[in-house]
C-alpha cells in the first residue's frame, strides 16, 4: 500500500481548524467517557467493584459474553461467505444480496428487535406453534441472539467486500490452474490475504454485539439476572437510583470498547507495515 506523507501545518487557518477538531472531539468523546469513569468512582473503587460483583451484574456479564460468543462466529462465517461470493464471482442478484447485507445498517434497532416479537412472540406468526412445543425464543437467550445477529450482520461482510474486490481473483485463478480445489484455494490463498481485514471486521462486530441496546431491549423482557445484557443492566441500575452501580457497569462496557480500540489500532499498525507481519 502506498503511503502519502501528510503536509506540514503552516497557516493559522490550519491550526485553528485542528484546534476546532480536537476541541469538538474533547467535547463529544472525551468528556462523556470521563464522566462515566468519574461517576463510577464517585464513592471509591470499592463501591464500583462491589457493584460489579453483584450476582445480577455478573449474570449480565455472562449473558453479554454468551450472546457475543454466538452472534459473532455466526456473522463471521456468513460475512466471509457473502464477501467471497460477492467479490470473487459473477451471479444474478448480486446487487440484491449486497443491498440485503446493508439493510440492518439502515434499520432502526427497535425494528430489528420487534420483528422477532412479531414472528416468535406468543401472538406472532409462529407463536402458537412454538408454545405448543414448549420452545422459547423471545424473552429468552435465542431472542437476544437473533436480535444481535440481525443488528451486527453487515459488519464482517462490509469490511471484507471492498478488500476482496481490490485484491481481485488473480491469485485464486493461479491456484486453480495449479490444481487446487475450492477449499484449498480459500484456505491457502484467500484467507491469508484477508486475515487482517477479517480480524478488524470481527472486532467491530463484537463491539457492537456487546453494546447493542435497542434491539435486545425489545426482546429481553428485562428479567433481572436472567435476560439482561450489560447495556440493559446499566439502564436498570440507573432507574433503580443506583448511580454508582450504573456507571460502574457502564465503565466496564467502556473498558471493553477501549480494549477493542487498542486491538484495532494494533491491527492497523500491522496492516500499514506488512513487512512486520
Amino acid at each position, binding site marked *: 500500500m502506498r503511503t502519502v506523507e501528510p503536509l506540514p501545518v503552516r497557516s493559522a487557518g490550519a491550526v485553528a481548524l485542528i484546534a476546532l477538531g480536537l476541541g469538538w472531539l474533547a467535547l463529544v468523546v472525551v468528556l462523556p467517557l470521563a464522566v462515566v469513569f468519574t461517576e463510577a468512582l464517585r464513592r471509591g473503587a470499592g463501591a464500583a467493584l462491589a457493584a460489579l460483583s453483584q450476582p445480577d451484574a455478573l449474570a449480565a456479564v455472562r449473558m453479554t459474553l454468551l450472546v457475543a460468543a*454466538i452472534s459473532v462466529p455466526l456473522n463471521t462465517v456468513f460475512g466471509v461467505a457473502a464477501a467471497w461470493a460477492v467479490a470473487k464471482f459473477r451471479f444474478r442478484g448480486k446487487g440484491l444480496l449486497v443491498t440485503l447485507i446493508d439493510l440492518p445498517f439502515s434499520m432502526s434497532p427497535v425494528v430489528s428487535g420487534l420483528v422477532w416479537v412479531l414472528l416468535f412472540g*406468543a*401472538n*406472532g406468526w409462529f407463536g402458537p406453534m412454538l408454545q405448543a412445543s414448549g420452545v422459547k425464543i423471545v424473552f*429468552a437467550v435465542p431472542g437476544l441472539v437473533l436480535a444481535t445477529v440481525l443488528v451486527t450482520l453487515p459488519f464482517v461482510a462490509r469490511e471484507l467486500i471492498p478488500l476482496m474486490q481490490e485484491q481481485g481473483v488473480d491469485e485464486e485463478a493461479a491456484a486453480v490452474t495449479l490444481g487446487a480445489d475450492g477449499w484449498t484455494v480459500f484456505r491457502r490463498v484467500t484467507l491469508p490475504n484477508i486475515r487482517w481485514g477479517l480480524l478488524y471486521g470481527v472486532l467491530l462486530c463484537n463491539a457492537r454485539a456487546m453494546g447493542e441496546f435497542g434491539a435486545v431491549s425489545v426482546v429481553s*423482557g428485562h428479567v433481572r439476572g436472567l435476560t439482561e445484557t450489560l447495556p440493559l443492566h446499566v439502564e436498570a441500575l440507573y432507574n*433503580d*437510583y443506583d448511580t454508582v452501580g450504573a456507571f460502574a457497569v457502564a465503565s466496564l462496557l467502556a473498558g471493553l470498547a477501549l480494549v477493542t480500540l487498542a486491538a484495532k489500532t494494533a491491527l492497523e499498525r500491522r496492516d500499514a507495515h506488512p513487512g512486520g507481519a
Partner: protein
Amino acid sequence: MQGLSRRDALATIGGAGLGVTLAGHAQAQASAGALLNVSYDATREFYRDVNGAFAAAWKTRTGQDVTIRQSHGGSGAQARSVIDGLEADVVSLALAYDIDQIASRGLLAPNWQSRLPQNSSPYTSTIVFLVRKGNPKQIRDWGDLTRPGVQVITPNPKTSGGARWNFLAAYGYGYRKGGDTAARKFVAELYSRTPVLDTGARGATNTFARRGLGDVLLAWENEAFLSIADAGPGRFEIVTPSVSILAEPAVAVVDKVVDRHGTRALAEAYLRFLYTDEGQALAAKHYLRPRSAKAIAPYRDRLPRMPLFTIDNFGGWAKAQKTFFADGGVFDQIYKPG
C-alpha cells in the same frame, strides 16, 4: 443466571442456527422453586424487600429454597410483554386494566380480581405533587398547576399506569369544580404545560429530579418519597393536594403460566404474603398505603388521610380506558404535542 452451562450454550448455538431452540430453561428453573414477578416502575425497592422476606418465610414453612425474579417497566408495556410471551408467574401492575388486558388474551381467568381480598389490590397509593425545595412556584393544589409559567412533568398515559392515575386525578379535581366541561378544560390546560411525556413513572421522575426539568412532578406518593430519599434531604418537597385519587395497583397469578411451570401453589402463597402483617408492614415502609389499619398507623404522619375518589367514580377501568385513553379518546382530543 446460575445455569448458563456449556450444554445450554451449545443447545442455544444449535438452536439459533436452525431457527429454533430447545426449551427447558424456564421449566428447569420452575421446578427448583422460582417465580417471575412482572411489575411496574415504582415497586422496584418494595419487591426487592418482599422477595427476600417471602423467600425466608417460605423456607421456614416448606424447607424449599425459592428464587423470585423481577422485571420492571411501564405498566402498559409490561402487560404487552406478558401478552407477547414473557412468562410471568405473577403480575403486579399499576392498575387493574392492564391485568384485564392480559386476561382478555386468555392467560388468566376473567374473574381474577375477585380471587384475592380488596379487589386483588393488597396496597394502594395516591397521586401527590413533588416540587423543588421551598416550593418556589407556591404550588398548593391542583388549581395552581395551570397558573402561568408553571411546567408540569407527568408520563404518557398511553404507556404508563401511573400517568393514567395522574390524568384521572386531575380530571376528578376539575369535575368537582364544574362537571365534565370544567374537567376537560382543566386537563387541556394542564397537559399544555408538559414539556415532555416519558413512557414510565420512573423516567418522568428522572426527568424532574435528575435532569431538572419542570416545576412540579405528578407522582405516585411512594415514588415521590423515594426520590426525596434518593436526592437527599432539602432538595424536594411533597405537596398533598386537597383531593386525589385512590390508586389501586393490582396483583394476579397468571394461570396459563403457573400451570405450565407447575408453580401455582408457590405463586398463590407469594401473593397472599402481601396481605400478611409482614407484607403490609413492608408496603408501609416503602411508602405504599397498606390495607391494614394496624400497618399504616405508625406511618400516619407521612401517609396522611386525605379525600380520595376512586376509579368507580369513572365507571370502572374498562369504561375509563375507553373514554379517556383509547385512540380518539379524551386524552387524544385535549393533548397537542409540542
